[in-house]
């Protein structure tokens, strides 16, 4: 317990670092996933911008990368991370790797949530002369917003989980904190403190997302 009290400043720093990493991963991965998910959705046969080639390419990409276990994915994309962000280790590499992995996972979640929008609703928008881009912006995304929020909350939890795993390859944050000060120093209390902070973050975000989705869906 004393060890934990002594480590409180580090725990606080680690918490903020985790939040920082998660936020950037959500930003890049979330945007990328949204774009790829939209691409999957609109290019389907009978979609807003049907395109067999693009749809097939996106599907193959997603199906190839999504099932790779994250820890292996981390190692595999290290050279790519080095090429893109200039380093294969540390936070930038971690953020790059997680965001990339998230793109593939999120894209399917986005696609599935967009598919919950009734095709008739899209047709109604087409019938008043709205073009595909306008429909995406002003109708498709608002109509799917409730499920999308819940989908992104789910992703948030997965990303927090990934950042903790990434602690093993030198990423900072709560995972790293737990390993460095708890696991290696044989201080289970310290490890558990990190776990509790993670649980708190996850609970808070999920709670907020539920509230927001309920508001959007008005139930």
């Amino acid at each position, binding site marked *: 317990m004393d060890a934990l009290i002594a480590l409180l400043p580090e725990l606080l720093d680690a918490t903020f670092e985790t939040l920082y990493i998660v936020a950037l991963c959500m930003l890049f991965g979330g945007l990328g996933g949204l774009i790829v998910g939209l691409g999957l959705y609109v290019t389907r046969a009978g979609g807003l911008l049907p395109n067999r080639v693009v749809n097939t390419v996106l599907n193959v990409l997603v199906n190839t990368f999504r099932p790779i276990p994250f820890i292996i994915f981390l190692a595999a994309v290290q050279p790519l991370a080095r090429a893109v962000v200039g380093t294969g280790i540390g936070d930038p590499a971690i953020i790059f790797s997680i965001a990339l992995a998230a793109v593939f996972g999120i894209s399917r979640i986005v696609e599935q949530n967009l598919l919950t929008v*009734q095709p*008739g*609703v899209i*047709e*109604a*928008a*087409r*019938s*008043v*002369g*709205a*073009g595909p881009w*306008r429909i995406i912006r*002003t*109708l498709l995304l*608002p*109509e799917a*917003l409730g499920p999308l929020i819940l989908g992104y909350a789910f992703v948030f939890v997965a990303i927090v989980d990934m950042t903790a795993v990434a602690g093993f390859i030198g990423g900072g944050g709560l995972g790293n904190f737990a390993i460095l000060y708890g696991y290696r120093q044989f201080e289970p209390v310290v490890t558990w403190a990190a776990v509790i902070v993670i649980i708190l973050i996850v609970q808070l975000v999920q709670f907020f997302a539920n509230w927001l989705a309920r508001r*959007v869906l*008005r139930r």
Partner: protein
Amino acid sequence: MLLGASAAVLIPRMTKAAPMPIVRLSEVSKSYPPSKRGAAPLLAVDKVSLDIEAGDIFGIIGYSGAGKSTLVRLINALEPVTSGTVEVDGRVISGLRERQLHDVRRGIGMIFQQFNLFNSRTVAGNVEYPLQVAGMPAAERKARVTEMLEFVGLADKARNYPDQLSGGQKQRVGIARALATSPKILLADEATSALDPETTTEVLALLKKVNRELGITIVLITHEMEVIKAVANRVAVMDSGRVIEEGSVFDVFSDPQTDAAKRFVSTVIRAVPEREALEQLRLKHPGRIVTVSFADGGVSQSEVFLEFANHGVTFELVYGGVNEIQGRTFGHLTLALKGDRIDAALAAISRTVSVTEVR
């Protein structure tokens, strides 16, 4: 009868020198790629030619899968034609580019069986959407939304969301949304098929008001003859992608030509007894049975009955009825006859009305 006789006469309002139909389909076909490789493509609409005059309430009736929805989607180019030409308001729209089609669609409203309202928007937001798409300034939009909601009688629901409305109210929002941009044409694809009979009557009355007060041409898709009978002035019967019969509602109802049309008409009109009913009648009336068909404006029934009396023929009315459509009456009366001079009586009567011996 479910919806009661409709007395309104719908005369096209826009009388031009040489009336050009507002919608003209010429040899229009639409095929979908086969579901299986190597199979024949599915011909949903097969060489349909149709003129719809401005001011019409034009009904299109057919069984499920006949190609009605596909046909109506060719009119606002939600689906491109495979061959043939579609002209709307004097402009050939088949073959236009997608961008140009956006403008065309703004001139054609559409309502749906499942209403297809936007759940993320309020009632007012739904009606406003086409106006935003059309680029109308916000202040004008607001006024127009209010006007439309008043027209459909939902001004008090402006701030509600669609899931807080009943089916009939939803369809009225659909109508307000479809008409917000003042289109000349309204396409209604099974617009009352998800509604109960009472609400159906309300919505049909509203469509009639739309036609009469705003002069909007309505293309009404349905599988229910009641709906056609209640509001349409012209009707086309579709079967397997083809229009097999077309004419004024009065003509098609009083004298259907094709089997499919006869079947549809028989759902609302008691005309000539079908086989089962006939067998029952035969059991009760071993004598001669005839069907007398009265056309509009022809001989009065009393004259016909008088002829029977003059020839000493007594009769019993065993089947049929008199109908009013578009303010005109017609009917088929099946009579069981008794008397010695039946032939002479029938000869006299058939000079003025059509008489069919039922065998």
